Structures are given as structure tokens and as C-alpha cells.
């Protein structure tokens, strides 16, 4: 056994990369769990191809999982990984350019044979031709060492080879001084019924750890101290799971059954998967024949007095748009979750983007206002989903929750909320007449609104005396009978908009963070760009760069101080993973010359990108001021 220097570092980004079949997502998940349990803050992002399993050893088949962990608040999965684990030459080729110079590249040396290299068009072996000179390259014969470790096992060679991801995990765990306990516990429960497989995996895991411990390959081990985080109980959670749980929380607090109508679509399907598990929590999930039926079943459930929810991604949003119009017209609670992905059309289905904002706001015929909320980090999806439920129920109106592939698949530690403190939602179902008819008899008017919220009463089938008919035709304000009266239509059109605007009473003002107190520049984001923007700002604040940050969670209605905030700064820069959709809205609304910065690459912004952007604008502003 050799002794290794242990180096303390503040944060590390690791990327696991291999063939779709190499189990990299599982490896990453496990490493994440260990890291989280150890007390680091972290953020993760899986990144896989749209094919299920593209041909082995090809660039198209490479599947990645990246995480960044640190001893302080971590906002993104990191840009340039410090450590790349590449299970084959394709994984190396696809990723090596992105590794931080001076970083470690760990490869399975056994996979670097001529055939594999030829397939990728490598003339020479990249491990030896000097092209990786900027990195510490560790060529570990993982396959053969795994096979060796499992020699005694009665498993096929193919099956044994499948454990090499555990070898890699063991090695990386050693490198970062992680214990193997939790992974062993996980394997024990996962393979409870297959003791053979369990033992093989544990053996491979330990072999990897031992390899690190016993060799001189690594001169150094790293340790990342636990982060100082708010006291509390934490778990790691992906955005899609958090969304599912936020919906459950909303329904539970309202005392309503959650009814999901959905149709699978990447990257939203995991919400359906998660909710399908929750029968014990009285969650009803219906996988319908298409997205239209998904929202239809949800809206039907809402009409029936449940909390109807539908989940989808861009193409599904198109299909649901007609039904959203009906939800607007019938003024029923409904939550629509759009996990945005790269578009237009099928686009880049497994990549991220935030280009459905204008669709969420305007993607229906007629004046069809819908409330729009966007989550800003994986764990934040919980609160955002809960809030979507609360607003939908209180205002009897569809609410769109925008997340995206980056949030949905990414994960971070989440401080568990104290459930008992989560505020009540009162559906306040109608039970009695609320009007008198022409003859002076008590009657029920389904469109008689609450004067405060403008919400209409929600009278659920089964309630005696309140039977009524609603639908897509324009209805008379109050009585709810079909009306073609021009003035009524004008009035109802404005009332629907006004009702959404009234939600502003329930949403907090837009908060601005400006530790320097002297910023002329505001950097404003929405949705998942929160991570990179926040990381960039925090880095720059450390060196005293005068920049203020604000992040919009509510896109419709906008917080009531939005205009005031925008006007407070000399310059407002809005970075978006689209062609400037929020900018457009803000410019139109407030006539402020927002600077739009856009990137449509199917990837989140990189922190240095945002840092550069800020630095440039700060410099430019300083110059302009000097000139003036």
C-alpha cells in the first residue's frame, strides 16, 4: 500500500462517460448520492443521446453524467470537468476537449484497440500520441481488472464486463476519499433477488477502490470538505421528481385528489413515472392515447372536482393548446407542466432549451391568458409546482409550469421542507345558490365571480342544486349562459386577463441582489439559467464586480415591481437559452432597452460565458460613464 497526499479542494466537477449500455447514469447517480451523503453541495446533469442505444463505440452512442460538488453553494454541474472518466475511445473523443487543462482523464485502457480507434477515425492512439498532453491521463485496464476480480464468479464474460462501471466508481470513490458503504447498501437492495450479481458488483467496486489505494497511478487524493449548508435534513433530488412531489404536495394541501393525464415524452416522462408509483398517496395517473387526451382527462377531472394536471414537453404543448383554451374559457383549475427541450419540431429531444416561453404565453388562438411560472433549479421545481397548484385552485385558472430538460434531469441537494408549515390551499367548493333568477328564485350562477380574485365558483358534479353547463362558447358574465353579446364578450375577455393579473397579489416582488450596492448593471434571468447566472455573479461579487442579479419566477403575471426594477439600472442584460423571448416581453411591457444575450445550443450557459458577459458590460458601462 502506498500513501497518498490528500489535497483539499473547494469544488470538483466529474464527468462519467461511456456507451449508452455502460451504465454511466447509474454510476453518476451513485457517486452523487455518496457525495450528497458526505455533505457536499452539488449539482448534476445527465446528457444522453436520443437513440436508446446507438451502435456501440460510436460518438452517437455516448452517454454522459456530470456532477460538480463543493464545500460551498454549488449552482451548476460545472462546465469544464476536472475529472473525466471515459469508458471507451468514443467517450474520450466526445469529451476530451472539454476537460479543464490540468485535469485528470481516466480511461479504460482495454478498450483502446485498433478496431475501436479505426471506427472513430483515429489515426494514432490518442493515449500515446501526445494529443492529451494538457491532462493527467490514467490508462487503467478496467475491463481486464474487473474480469480478474470476478474470476471466481459463475457469470458469463459479458455479464462480468457489465460490472466495470462499478470498478470505475470504486476508483473514483477512492480518488475523492468517499466511503463505499452507501453504494453497497444500494446494491444490496437493488439485487436482493440476484445475490450473484450483487456480489460481483461489490467485488468490482472494491477492486476499483483497492486499485487506487495500491497503485501509484495517482499521486494525490482529493478531499472536498462538506459545505456549510443551512441546518436541516437533506436529500438529493432531480427536477422531475421534485415537480412530481410538488404536485402531490399541492393536491394534498388542498385536500384534493391529484389526477394526472399524460402521454410519455422526453424529457417529461419521468414525472409520469414518479407519479405512477404514488397510488398509496391517492394519486391517479392515466397514460392516455396522446397529449390531447392527457389534458382532456385532466380537465375532466378538474371539472369533477379533482386537481387535474398534465405533463409534457414542447410538441405536446402544441397539441394541448386547443384544450388550454377550453380551460381558460371554463375557468377551471389545471396545472400544465412543460419540461422544455430543444426545438422547433422534434428538434433536439434530449437537450435543454427555454424556448417555449412565448408559446406558453401566446400559443393559443384568441385572447387566452394563462398564468406562467418557471422553476429555477432542480429542487426548486417542488416549490414552483406547489405554487402552480395553489394559484390554479385559488383562481380557477390554468397555470403553466415551465421547467426544462436541464432542470428535469439535473439534481441537487434539497433541504426537506417542514410539511406542516406549508400553507393551506382552500378549494372552497361551491355548495349553495349564489344568485336569484328572473322569478326571484335562488339559483346558481357559475360565472359569478369573487370580487377579490375574480375567480368563479367551483361547483362540482354531485352537488345538489348547482347543476350547470359550461363549455367553450362565450358565456354571459355571471349567469354563464351562452352569450353572443358584443359587450359581454369584450368584458369577459378583459376579465379573464384581469383575473390572471390579480394573481400578482399572491406573488412576491422581484428581488434584486446587489452586494456591491453600486451596480449599474442588472443581469436578469428566468428559469434554469439561474444556476449559471448565480454562479457567475457570486464569483464576480467575490472580486467586487458591481453587478446586480434578479431572477423572474413569475412570467405571467410579472411581479408588480418589475418595471421599477428594470428602470432602476443603467443597463439590463437578459441571457436566455432562446432568441430573446423574455426580453421581448419586457421590452414591450416596459419600453426598456433590454440587452438580450442568446444561446440556442441545447446546453445551459457556461459560468465563464456569463462572467465574460458581465465583465464586458461592466467595462462598457464604466467607459460610457467616463465619456459622458
Amino acid at each position, binding site marked *: 500500500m502506498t500513501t497518498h497526499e490528500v489535497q483539499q479542494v473547494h469544488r470538483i466537477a466529474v464527468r462519467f462517460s461511456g456507451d449508452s449500455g455502460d451504465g454511466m447514469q447509474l454510476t453518476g447517480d451513485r457517486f452523487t448520492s455518496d457525495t*450528497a451523503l458526505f455533505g457536499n453541495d452539488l449539482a448534476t446533469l445527465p446528457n444522453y443521446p436520443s437513440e436508446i442505444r446507438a451502435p456501440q463505440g460510436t460518438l452517437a452512442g455516448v452517454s454522459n453524467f456530470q456532477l460538480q460538488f463543493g464545500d460551498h453553494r454549488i449552482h451548476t454541474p460545472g462546465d469544464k470537468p476536472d475529472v473525466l472518466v471515459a469508458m471507451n475511445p468514443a467517450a474520450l473523443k466526445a469529451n476530451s476537449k472539454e476537460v479543464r487543462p490540468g485535469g485528470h482523464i481516466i480511461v479504460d485502457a482495454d478498450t483502446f484497440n485498433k478496431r475501436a480507434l479505426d471506427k472513430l477515425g483515429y489515426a494514432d492512439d490518442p493515449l500515446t500520441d501526445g494529443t492529451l498532453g494538457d491532462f493527467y491521463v490514467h490508462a487503467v485496464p478496467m475491463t481486464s481488472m474487473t474480469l480478474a476480480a470476478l474470476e471466481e464468479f459463475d457469470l458469463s464474460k459479458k455479464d462480468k464486463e457489465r460490472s466495470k462501471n462499478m470498478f470505475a466508481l470504486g476508483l473514483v470513490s477512492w480518488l475523492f476519499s468517499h466511503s463505499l458503504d452507501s453504494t453497497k447498501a444500494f446494491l444490496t437492495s437493488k439485487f436482493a433477488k440476484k445475490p450473484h450479481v450483487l456480489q460481483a458488483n461489490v467485488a468490482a467496486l472494491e477492486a476499483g477502490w483497492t486499485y487506487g489505494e495500491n497503485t501509484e497511478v495517482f499521486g494525490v487524493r482529493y478531499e472536498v470538505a462538506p459545505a456549510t449548508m443551512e441546518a436541516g435534513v437533506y436529500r438529493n433530488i432531480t427536477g422531475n421528481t421534485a415537480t412530481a412531489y410538488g404536485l402531490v404536495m399541492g393536491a394534498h394541501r388542498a385536500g384534493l385528489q391529484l389526477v394526472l393525464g399524460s402521454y410519455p415524452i422526453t424529457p417529461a416522462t419521468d414525472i409520469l413515472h414518479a407519479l405512477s408509483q404514488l*397510488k398509496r398517496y391517492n394519486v*391517479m395517473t392515466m397514460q392516455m392515447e396522446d397529449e390531447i*387526451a392527457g389534458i382532456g382527462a385532466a380537465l375532466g377531472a378538474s371539472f369533477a372536482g379533482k386537481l387535474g394536471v398534465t405533463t409534457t414537453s414542447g410538441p405536446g404543448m402544441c397539441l394541448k393548446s386547443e384544450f388550454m383554451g377550453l380551460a381558460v374559457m371554463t375557468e377551471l383549475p389545471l396545472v400544465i407542466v412543460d419540461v422544455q427541450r430543444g426545438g422547433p419540431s422534434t428538434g433536439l429531444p434530449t437537450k435543454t432549451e427555454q424556448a417555449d416561453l412565448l408559446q406558453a404565453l401566446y400559443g393559443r388562438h384568441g385572447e387566452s391568458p394563462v398564468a406562467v411560472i418557471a422553476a429555477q433549479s432542480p429542487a426548486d421545481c417542488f416549490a414552483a409546482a406547489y405554487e402552480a397548484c395553489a394559484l390554479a385552485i385559488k383562481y380557477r385558472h390554468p397555470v403553466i409550469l415551465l421547467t426544462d430538460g436541464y432542470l428535469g434531469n439535473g439534481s441537487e441537494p434539497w433541504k426537506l*421542507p417542514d410539511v406542516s408549515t406549508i400553507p393551506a390551499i382552500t378549494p372552497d367548493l361551491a355548495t349553495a345558490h349564489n344568485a336569484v333568477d328572473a322569478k326571484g328564485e335562488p339559483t346558481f350562477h357559475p360565472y359569478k365571480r369573487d370580487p377579490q380574485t375574480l375567480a368563479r365558483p367551483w361547483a362540482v*358534479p354531485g352537488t345538489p342544486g348547482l347543476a*350547470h*353547463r*359550461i*363549455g367553450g362558447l362565450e358565456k354571459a358574465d355571471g349567469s354563464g349562459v351562452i352569450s353572443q353579446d358584443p359587450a359581454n364578450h369584450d368584458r369577459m375577455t378583459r376579465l379573464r386577463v384581469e383575473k390572471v393579473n390579480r394573481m400578482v397579489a399572491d406573488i412576491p416582488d422581484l428581488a434584486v441582489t446587489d452586494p456591491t450596492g453600486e451596480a449599474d448593471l442588472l443581469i436578469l434571468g428566468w428559469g434554469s439559467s439561474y444556476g449559471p447566472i448565480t454562479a457567475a455573479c457570486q464569483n464576480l461579487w467575490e472580486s467586487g464586480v458591481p453587478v446586480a442579479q434578479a431572477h423572474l419566477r413569475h412570467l405571467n403575471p410579472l411581479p408588480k415591481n418589475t418595471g421599477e426594477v428594470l428602470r432602476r439600472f443603467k443597463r439590463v442584460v437578459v441571457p436566455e437559452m432562446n432568441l430573446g423571448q423574455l426580453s421581448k416581453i419586457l421590452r414591450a411591457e416596459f419600453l426598456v432597452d433590454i440587452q438580450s444575450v442568446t444561446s440556442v445550443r441545447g446546453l445551459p450557459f457556461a459560468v465563464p460565458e456569463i462572467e465574460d458577459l458581465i465583465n464586458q458590460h461592466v467595462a462598457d458601462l464604466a467607459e460610457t460613464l467616463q465619456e459622458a
Partner: protein
Amino acid sequence: MTTDYSDLTELAGTAFVPRVHSDRVLTKKEFVSDQEVRWCPGCGDYAILAAFQQFVPELGIAPENMVVVSGIGCSSRFPYYVDSYGMHAIHGRAPSLATGIATSRPDLSVWIMTGDGDALAIGGNHLIHALRRNVNLNIVMFNNEIYGLTKGQYSPTSPAGLVTKSTPFGSVDHPFNPIRLALGSDATFVARTIASDRQHLTATLRQAALHRGASFVEVLQNCVIFNDGAFDGLKDTTDGARILRMEAGQPLIAGERCVVRDPLHGLTVVPTSAVDESKILKHDPKAHNPGIAFALASIEGADNRDFLPIGVFREIVRPAYDDEVREQIRTYVDAAGGLPTDQDIASLLAGRNTWTVS
């Protein structure tokens, strides 16, 4: 048309819908809303509305426990006229709404009133899926073989050759036979009736209501404005009855003609006088194999209305989707001792891997 349902299913269509107190006598009036009925004078839709409002009180359920859902079309205005809960939704999508309603609320009697365009053109997919899932719904399709509301374009049931506003030189589309489509979707209750035959219509609606699972009823309905007389050919002519009234257990005879097995085609139509009565096929809507029902729906003369079978083609027992969805939930909720508490939710949120920062 009387059938004994005792052996058919333990659960009637309205099994979980509360019954009104035994001394409350429900009347037709309670199912009539205050909205003026707005169909063209002479439209066949009136007869369907009247038959419906007349018969539903029999079910013994209060109007507030009924929901009528529709899409868009003349026929789809139906909900406004029934004093129950109702939703006049968007074109073709009623089955999806109704699936949400019926699955989440077993205590409601859910009806879909739809047209041939609404159900079979834009809404075809939702229809076939509701039927295969066997959601506990009553689907009544008003088939006037035309798009009435949009003023007369051919529909998926219009006969080939029909001249309409969108087919000025005659349609070249082969129409659906709605019965065959429903059978092809593995529907558990499939029937055809005629709006102008009040008694048959009422009896068919009643049977549909009793059926647990999805019941599909095609009602031939005359549109006086855009396709008047579409079903005039069915009126008896000198060559004998054109309508074959199928009744469970009864031989399939219509006037001078009857149905017998045929080695080549499965079934065939022959003069009643030419065969021994014992050879005449007896109708069995509960047959395990739906082949004969399908053959009946396709029998010589059926597609050109020379010999049109009406009545219940098929009526079998299969678990209803909504019952099973609820059952799965109930099992797990019960096993856990009831609806989740805050505590339960907290442990759901925590999952299996937590750590504490202090």
C-alpha cells in the same frame, strides 16, 4: 326487446351512483333545463332528447349525479338542454374529458352525446381508445351522415357519391361503419337504433345505461336541412322489411328475409320461407367470439341499407378501466391505512437517502 341482465354483470353502469331516496319520484321535468332548444324544426335530435329525458328518471339517480359531455356539432349542444352537470367541450374531445370524469368519480353517470363528425372524424382516436379501455361511459352517437353545424359537408359516415358542399362532384371516401369500428375497438357494448323509432331508441338507451363499461350506441338521425331523407330508404317498401330488429335469443328475421349461416361468407340472407325455422340464426350478443356480431354488421344489404340490423350487436362483461384504476389506488391506500397524512407526505419527500446538516 327484453333481456335478462341478471347473469350478465354484477355491476350495473350506475352501480356506484347514489340512488335518490325511495320515496322521491323523479320526473322528466327535472332533467329539462331552462335553455331553449335550438335545433332546426324537424331535426331528429329532438326525438333523442325527448327519449333521453323521458327514460333517465327510471335510473333512480338525481340529475346532479349525471354529467353530460359533448364535443361540437348540432348534436353536441345536447348538454345545454339537460338539467344535469354538463360540458359542451371542444370538437371531438369529449371522450377524453369523460374518461377523466368517470375515472375520478364513480358516483356519476357519465354520458357523451356526439355526432358522426365529432366522434368519428376529429374524435375517432379518443372514441376507439375509450371503447377499448372500457371506461364506464355511455356514448350516444347521432349519425346524420353529415356535418350539420358547419352547414353540410360530408362526414366519415356519408355514403360514397354523396354530393355536399365539399364534394360537389360526389364523395370518393368509403365511409366507416360505426358498428364495425366499435367492434374492431373491442367495445363491450355496441348497438344501433333509429331516432324515429322512439320505443327502440328508449330501450337501447336503457340497455346502454345498465351496461358497466363503455356502451356505444349509434342513433340514425335525420338532418332535415343538409341531408334530409338519408334514411328514407329504410322505410319498408314492397320488397319487405329492410330493418332487422335483433333481439337476444330470438331468430334473426325481418319480414320475408332471415339470416342463416353460410359456409362461404359466414352469414347470409335468405327468404324466410326457404328455410326451416330451426336453421335461422338466433341472436347472441354475448357470444365469446365477436365474429358473428361483425358478420351481422357486415351482412349483405347492411351497408346500402337494404337490410339493416338494429339493436344490440354485442354486450359482454369485461372489467371497466375506471374501476380497475380506482381499485389499484384503493388497495394501496387501504393497505397504508387510509389517505396520506402530513407525516406520510413528509416521508415520501424524504425518500430513502437523506443526510442531516446541523
